[in-house]
């Protein structure tokens, strides 16, 4: 792939919107072409700057939501909308009461990336079932120890890529267990500070919760945090997360 073609595809590449093959070709090109690498870096910063500028609430809009909710409640036909009425009250003031596992910062970030993967928006940068090839791929790219183990026999390791959970860099491993897609994220333990809602549970042992159809697990393994999310039985999720990340349960349960 030449420089012109790479630059044409850069925005979609940076959005992780390209197919695995094209994405891989561009990665290869960027590794060997400093000019395109610099361009990719600048385009990425430009998009981030656009995103930040557009995501700022325009002046005078901060109270519009609450005012709209008050008025929506006033217009409600109570007979047909009785079930949602309590909810609108919650939007007005006590919404936090209902916030469940899906609102925990780390679980929400994992859910976001996992859904993006399921929708085809995040593809592996390297496709391999060989843990040592993945370790070699991640070496030097991330500030985290990425030693890995072998997955259980009924689990297929598909590949991995570098990614961010919120703004924390991590190794992202994709796997399949039966019909369920599994996402495993490994980040340095220092990144836990970026997730104040999840931090207490992880430090006390593990974060275990549910987000929509997915079970979420996050635990500390020495100097790193291992996170896993899938539509799987929680015990099975933990067994495969510990096997793939090379962090078996104490007592030899592999």
């Amino acid at each position, binding site marked *: 792939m030449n420089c012109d073609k790479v630059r044409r595809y850069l925005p979609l590449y940076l*959005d992780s919107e390209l197919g695995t093959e094209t994405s891989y070709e561009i990665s290869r090109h960027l590794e060997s072409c400093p000019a395109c690498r610099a361009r990719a870096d600048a385009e990425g*910063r430009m998009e981030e*700057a656009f995103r930040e500028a557009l995501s700022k609430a325009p002046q*005078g809009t901060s109270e519009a939501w609450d005012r709209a909710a008050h008025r929506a409640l006033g217009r409600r036909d109570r007979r047909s909308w009785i*079930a949602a009425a309590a909810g609108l009250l919650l939007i007005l003031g006590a919404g936090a009461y209902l916030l469940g596992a*899906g*609102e925990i910062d780390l679980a929400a970030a994992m859910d976001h990336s996992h859904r993006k993967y399921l929708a085809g928006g995040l593809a592996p940068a390297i496709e391999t079932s060989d843990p040592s090839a993945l370790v070699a791929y991640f070496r030097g790219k991330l500030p985290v120890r990425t030693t890995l183990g072998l997955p259980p026999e009924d689990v297929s390791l598909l590949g991995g890529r570098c990614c961010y959970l919120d703004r924390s860099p991590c190794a992202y491993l994709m796997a399949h267990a039966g019909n369920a897609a599994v996402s495993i994220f490994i980040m340095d333990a220092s990144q836990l500070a970026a997730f104040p809602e999840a931090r207490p549970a992880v430090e006390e042992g593990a974060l275990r919760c549910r987000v929509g159809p997915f079970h979420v697990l996050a635990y500390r393994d020495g100097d790193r945090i291992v996170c896993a999310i899938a539509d799987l039985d929680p015990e099975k999720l933990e067994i495969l997360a510990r096997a793939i990340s090379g962090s078996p349960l104490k007592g030899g349960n592999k």
Partner: protein
Amino acid sequence: MSQSKDLLQGLERHREALTVYCARLLWSQEDLQDALQELMLAACRNCAQFAPGTDFRSWIFRIATLTCFNFNRRHQRNDGTTPFPLDEISGGIEQELEREYTYEEILRDPAAILGRLEDEVARACRDLTEKERAILLLKAVGSLTCSEIASVLGVPLGTAQGLLTRARMKMRERLSEYARRRGVPAAKESA
């Protein structure tokens, strides 16, 4: 009750993104409160259609998009004005080269330049066509993938990708033009 609980959790979770999205997609800021109200009511009315565990973000942004489009159409009918999409920036090859040069300058430090052009970013976004603006905002504010955006707008994936690319190009052209007129890169170099 479980469905309405899911709905309300989802609304609460996305309230900031939905407010910003609607504020930037509506032609008239005066419609914001009414549009958010209609969005909440429409979400409640269609609550039964939302299957828990499916992609709530796409579902609610689709409702927000249709609500804003309806308000924009109403606005056009009432006062006879038409929202104008960005005029194609035209000119000779020299102007094209100059814009490319300016864009290269902007790319050297996007954050510093855009920090000074924040209002212009918002204006450039407002000058996009309605669909381009929706796509750009669904990506930037809603963090939706192109396939999710395609589903929100009911267009093929390729169309969504094409429109997103075009919207980004227009934003960049507009900002390059503005930066060139104002001498922003030159000002930065002399700072």
